[in-house]
């Protein structure tokens, strides 16, 4: 196991402890360098965004750095709403100061003077801890005007999410900070040009930003020795489901999924009882047994037409009905759709209705066809990524678990989870 990002699990550092353990030393070093040098180093490190999109971070930062504006913003996206994902929770819980330090470094690189740490509203039990960290950092002149006498000024505000998965999408997040409903905006213009309050804005996931620290500390050359050619460094995988050891695992890219599950996580029952593994959260691909050996990297997933996403890993065994799983997933997207565009607002609802029908033994092949068409129109024509990726799980299941779906249409549920006679499974 690698450990570039985390403190030892269970140890919550106080500000004093962090400073003593070389906290903010990286910041001190960085402020002596030129901002463009930092961006170049990040580009050399080939860091990819860890929130889900996997976009090259150096490039994204360059876009914002190149903009001239009276004010630029940086937003740390800790709205972690993808089901199965809790890595950012851990990063923030164990050491928010690292996140703060990373934000200041990124701000310096792009010329931002104001930042927002947008943490999902449900994480209220770590809010005070984080805000205390920000306050202390300010007192120690790591934040505020003229940081450590370098002339660089940057301050940071904690913002709470308000309970909307869509606000994990960067433009919806910005809408939320601007006091409105989280309706995504059209891109282009990109947030690098017109973001928060129409100013150049860099939005990055917590994990992405924290990766800046080992890159600065070790240098890009060393950083790239971790991981694969295209996926450098480490990834935090949130593992849940039918395993003995659940939690956040920091893994260098390149490890096989099956190795992670077999060795670190260890299945509850025999490994052979694992039916599917969903990677990337509810919007992620559903892998069948013969794909469990897939390499955990962006390129390996891209090769099968999928996306590593947030790195959530949900392990399900044979007791799980594939339809029950799809219904819970569809339920989630139906509830979280912002409602703005037709395919997602209306499509999610019809998907739930058809899945219900199938799970009650009332489904027909025609329904399956309509389900597929609805998935296609959402994937092709939705306004934003939520609608576009909501059908992913269903499309995976149609591809890899057609038999079980077909069995339900024939009136059979392998696991007995579906009542098959009508009745309320709609929770």
């Amino acid at each position, binding site marked *: 196991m690698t450990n570039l990002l985390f403190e030892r699990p269970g140890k919550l550092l106080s500000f004093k402890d962090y400073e003593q353990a070389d906290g903010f030393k990286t910041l001190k070093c960085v402020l002596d360098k030129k901002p463009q040098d930092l961006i170049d180093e990040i580009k050399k490190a080939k860091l990819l965004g860890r929130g889900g999109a996997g976009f090259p971070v150096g490039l994204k930062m360059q876009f914002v750095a190149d903009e001239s504006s009276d004010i630029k913003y940086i937003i740390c996206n800790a709205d972690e709403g993808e089901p199965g994902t809790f890595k950012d929770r851990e990063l923030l819980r164990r050491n928010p100061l690292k996140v703060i330090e990373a934000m200041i470094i990124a701000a310096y690189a792009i010329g931002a003077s104001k930042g927002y740490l947008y943490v999902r509203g449900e994480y209220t039990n770590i809010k005070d801890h984080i805000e205390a960290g920000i306050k202390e950092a300010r007192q120690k002149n790591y934040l505020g005007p003229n940081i450590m006498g370098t002339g660089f000024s940057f301050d940071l505000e904690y913002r709470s999410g308000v309970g909307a998965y869509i606000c994990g999408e960067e433009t919806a997040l910005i809408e939320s900070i601007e006091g409105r409903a989280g309706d995504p905006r059209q891109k282009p213009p990109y947030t690098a040009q017109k973001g928060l309050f129409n100013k150049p804005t860099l939005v990055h996931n917590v994990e992405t930003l924290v990766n800046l620290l080992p890159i600065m500390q070790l240098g890009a050359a060393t950083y790239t020795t971790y991981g694969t050619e295209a996926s450098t460094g480490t990834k935090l995988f949130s593992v849940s489901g039918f395993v003995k050891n659940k939690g956040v695992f920091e893994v260098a890219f390149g490890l096989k999924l099956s190795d992670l599950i077999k060795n670190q996580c260890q299945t509850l029952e025999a490994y052979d009882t694992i039916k599917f593994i969903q990677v990337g959260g509810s919007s992620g691909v559903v892998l069948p047994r013969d794909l469990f050996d897939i390499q955990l990297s962006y390129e390996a997933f891209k090769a099968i037409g999928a996306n590593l996403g947030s790195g959530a890993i949900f392990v399900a065994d044979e007791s799980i009905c594939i339809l029950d799983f799809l219904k819970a997933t569809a339920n989630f997207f139906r509830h979280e759709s912002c409602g703005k565009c037709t395919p997602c607002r*209306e499509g999610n609802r019809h998907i739930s209705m058809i899945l219900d029908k199938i799970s009650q033994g009332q489904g027909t092949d025609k329904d399956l066809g309509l389900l597929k068409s609805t998935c296609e129109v959402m994937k092709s024509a939705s306004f934003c990524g939520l609608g576009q990726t909501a059908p992913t799980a269903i499309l995976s299941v149609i591809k890899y678990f057609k038999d079980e779906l077909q069995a339900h249409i024939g009136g059979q549920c392998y696991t007995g989870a579906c009542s098959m006679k009508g009745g309320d499974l709609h929770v």
Partner: protein
Amino acid sequence: MYKITINGRQASFDQAISILDAAKKMGIKIPTLCYHPDLKVKGNCRVCIVEVEGLQPLQAACLTKISDGMVIHTNNKRVRENRRLILELILANHDQTCTTCHSNGVCELQRLTEELNIKANRYDQVLEEEPIMYGNPSIVRDMNKCIKCGRCIQACNDIQEVGAIYNIGRSFEMRMGPAYDFDLSQVKCTYCGQCINVCPVGAIYEKDDIVHVLNAIEDESKHVIAQIAPSIRVSLGEMFGLAPGENVASKLPTLLRNMGFDAVFDTDFTADLTILEEGIEFLDRLENGGVLPMLTSCSPGWINYIEQFYPDLIDHLSTCKSPQQMFGALAKTYYADKIHQAPKDLVVVSFMPCTAKKFEAQRPEMGRNGLPDVDYVLTTRELGNMIKMQGYDLDHIEASDFDAPFGITTGAGLIFGASGGVMEAALRSVYEIVTGQALKEINFTQVRGLTGVKEATIDVGDIQVKVAVTNSLTNAKMILDKIRNKEADYHFVEVMCCPGGCIGGGGQPRPTNNAIRIERIKGIYSAEEKMTLRKSHENPAVKALYEEFLEKPNSDLAHKLLHTHYKNRQK
């Protein structure tokens, strides 16, 4: 240079315009639904999706700008199938009882299903029936028809900055309406009806009063008279295939008499009267240190606005009633007397481009002895429907004049329908009254047109009168904020609630957009130019009215009948 290919055809453009605009210029039609030329582009409905080579998801043509080398398919199999699914999804959550719908025949969704040859729907109907909201005199909301395009929200929040309605909630429960699913009467709404003008379907429409008017006409004991607003004559024709701006004034008296009205009058008459009353009021304030700037008061949507949002500034309003209400008051006193008709058997029907006037007519202070001065207000749309219902059209109708005495009018009264018209009419009279001299140039073109705020300084004798003309409530708000901050350096401000003035009112034919407003405005001014009398104080019938009845502007009787007071209606 942007070289693009659409459906195999190439074209070059100087600017990175939207795919929708580029296609239009190339003569290629891309269907749209939530798109509206006067509103910010949203990309919600996804009807205008097209395939752009190199991009996996389909792109909304309205939102996506062209780039050099772009290859676009607007109608291949993938686009057609997805567009069809989108229409079906919309229809699955839409009340499809078109035959009884207020937008039957003018509905944009109806037209789309026809153009795209939608003949079946694979989806189950998911509409959850909601009651139709009838809780106010002006605007009805039928949310079963709403397709969530968002145009009404833009009209209410961006164009008018009123915010009576907004997006509420999320996902499939997302709806458009007032807070708590109230009726409009329970939130701050001005009944301006701009939401109606932009609705592509029949989700919002005016309260239909046609049947009441027809009943009154049938009732032998009732004497039913009509007054026609300035704007009607240059817009009604649109419902009969004529171009916007074409003047059908001469047909209206015959038409309405044929339909059974006992007399047909012209609201332009009381518009002239308003100028006299308001002109004198203004001069009085100017000379005697009254509250300035004085704000016009003939737009009831605007009155609703100031009463609810800026009640502290009510004193700035002219105390004059609107021409509609002045007419009603005179009809039930002066006219009723003249024709020996008991007021209770006199029915006054006004035809207006306006939905707020339905509310105005039923205000308690707009009546006497338990009877309203104006009994019914019908919009231009209702007039058009009423005409069609009875088998009439605008052809084969002989020209005729409006009835006397309330049918003799000047051009100054006519231009009330356009933004700047009231101000121009007032200036024409005020100038001559104060200086005693004839104006060399009676056209004050600097106050005309669609622009939101127009300013001018006119030399009237010794005084430099500073005026402003605004249309749309966003600009009204701006002026009111200026007044509150003591920064309003004007003497007199004309405020019209609706964009473009009354010709852009909430009761006008569908569609009403800025391009059409411009044509209607042109129609008003070109009709006005042809008139013999063009200044209100030269109206012989108005002069006679003062001599016979009112004595002089703002006499006790004039004050009693033609002036009013306002209320603090802040909720």
